[in-house]
């Protein structure tokens, strides 16, 4: 790492994009309002001026068409990064993404690769209402053939985006839009961050907190609160859902004997279930308490701030869930009944 240079997560991804576009002329950026306008989150600022309209491509509001075309282009020598502004709109592209991109390598017995990055934003906040506030990353992780990366820090955002662009598999690159202004150290040169290697964001000995993306920061905040109460929490940042690094999680749980899994997606049938179940399968003998899961309730996000706030797990909720494992709070799993 060169010095203590810091960037926001948004800037870090932008830097990865620029470096990869510089390195490989096959890399394209495609999406709505991504060109001269620079993206609705300013997430492509400057790319258009630097690489031109031939490589930073504005499209009509035609998500299914642009992802379908990106799949075909990826099979034919291009390496497109396609942006779907909000993950809610990925519903529009499920056919080219799930039935085409994810399957083509397998169906051609390895004859074709689909080096495509679908970049999209999840997250709750800003009063955007039910059709702009979903976090459906678990859907993507459920599809064989798709890679799913979700950075928590600016450094990882840069390194994971580089890997996403260089890998020959289709990658859904999921950013929490509420982390765009998060600032942190980012190496100027910067090696790619490999997929499938979780990061120990904080070392601890009494409980393992497993999270990804924005929820890593919630878990870290909870860990700080727990430290004040004498509980040492280890925080694991998964970095990618596919591949999923359960080895790091299991090694941690064997040490701590307790685990709480935290996610911003809907808890029901979400990623916390997969991780908790795998801990149960692989580390049952080491557990001193049931694995707890925190996620969004089974309800759409509202526009109203008061209702929006209750969607995501808070640090306080994570802290209390941990304390419940030590018998100092209720052990029941509170989930609004819907």
């Amino acid at each position, binding site marked *: 790492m060169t010095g203590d240079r810091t960037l926001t997560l948004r800037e870090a991804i932008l830097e990865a994009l620029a470096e990869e576009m510089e390195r490989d002329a096959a890399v394209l950026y495609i999406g*709505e309002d991504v060109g001269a306008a620079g993206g609705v989150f300013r997430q492509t600022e400057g790319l258009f001026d630097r690489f031109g309209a031939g490589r930073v491509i504005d499209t*009509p509001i035609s998500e299914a068409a642009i992802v379908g075309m990106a799949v075909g282009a990826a099979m034919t020598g291009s390496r497109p990064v396609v942006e779907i502004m909000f993950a809610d709109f990925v519903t529009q592209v499920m056919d080219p993404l799930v039935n085409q991109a994810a399957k083509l390598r397998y169906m051609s017995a390895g004859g074709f690769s689909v080096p495509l990055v679908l970049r999209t934003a999840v997250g709750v906040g800003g009063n955007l209402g039910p059709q702009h506030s979903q976090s459906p990353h678990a859907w993507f992780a459920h599809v064989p053939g798709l890679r799913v990366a979700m950075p928590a820090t600016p450094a990882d955002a840069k390194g994971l985006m580089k890997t996403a662009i260089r890998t020959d598999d289709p990658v859904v690159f999921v950013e929490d839009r509420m982390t765009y202004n998060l600032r942190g150290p980012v190496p100027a040169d910067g090696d790619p961050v490999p997929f499938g290697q979780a990061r120990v964001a904080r070392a601890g000995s009494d409980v393992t907190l497993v999270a990804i993306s924005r929820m890593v920061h919630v878990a870290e905040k909870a860990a700080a609160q727990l430290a004040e109460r004498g509980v040492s929490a280890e925080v694991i940042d998964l970095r990618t859902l596919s591949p999923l690094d359960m080895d790091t999680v299991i090694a941690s749980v064997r040490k701590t004997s307790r685990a709480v899994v935290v996610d911003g997606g809907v808890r029901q049938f979400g990623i916390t279930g997969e991780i908790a179940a795998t801990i149960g399968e692989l580390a049952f003998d080491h557990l001193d308490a049931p694995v707890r899961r925190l996620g969004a309730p089974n309800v759409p996000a509202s526009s109203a701030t008061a209702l929006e706030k209750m969607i995501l797990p808070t640090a306080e909720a994570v802290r209390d869930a941990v304390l419940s494992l030590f018998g100092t709070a209720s052990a029941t799993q509170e989930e609004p009944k819907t």
Partner: protein
Amino acid sequence: MTAPAADRRRAIFARMLLMRRLEESVALMSKDHPFGHFHLYIGQEATGAAVIEALRPTDLATTTHRNHGHLVGRGADEKAVLAEILGRADGCNGGRGGTLHVTDRDRGFLATSAVVGGSIGLGTGAAHALKRQGKGAVCAAFFGDGAMEEGIAFETLNLAALWRLPVLYVCENNSRGALGARAGEFPTSEMAAPKLSGIPESLGIRTAVVDGADADAVHAAAADAVDALRAGDGPVFLEARTERWPGSRPLWPELLTGETDLALAWEPERIAGDHAAWIREQDPILRYARVLTDAGVCTRDDLAAIDRDVRDRMAAARDFAAASPWPDARSATDTVFALEA
């Protein structure tokens, strides 16, 4: 073109002014009440108001993220609309939808889709149900020119044509003069078709293209269309073209043309500033005010009286919305399902 009857023209103007003053209130309140990204209907009032005037109360409608004008234009309580935009408990939808999703079932609105193109599919489905009910009701599906870029538009138009559904497609093409390719401006939408109405025409759908800032022209076309729909002639596609209001060029809307001064309709020499051309030539409110006084339908005093009333209502609505409580967080999980498990 025959102009609508005088009482209809006055009603259209009143609806237009209600829309304008509501949106000015929204812009004003956005400074003190963050309620998320929003879209204003300014510059398109003639289209919504005249189409709504051509509908009956039993007709249905679907709309988009740019819905505020449609809602109050069709009689939704401006207090509840503003409260909804602010995400308050007294909003039309209890604060759940916010600015992007204001609806009012009692005024015949099924849905406001913030996903581009959504209103086209839903409106056509409603028309299918209305046809089955056989009472002659129709559905108006409002959407912008950008929606024509989505696959659902083509697929739905085809079905509506095949099944001769009583749906009025109101394509509010507000991109005339849009400069999205310039840095920092939105949107960048574009179509290869030289005219949007060529797409439905290729499917045998009857189309009309009108100046969307000319209330009388929109009303004539909409009234014709609705007659055809009720006669069972199949869908109609109405493209209403407007010059993009300068205030919606930035990513976040701004009242770049100021609060509307009705007197400018008759005193154009007082119009100044960067956006004078839009105000002088395009502002549908000023244009219609001039048309109505020139035609002797109303006097300047009549229109000023309507404006005073509308402003009073909006002032009350702003106070109401600002004072409305936040929704109770305990209610957040209500109504997810029809049957609570």
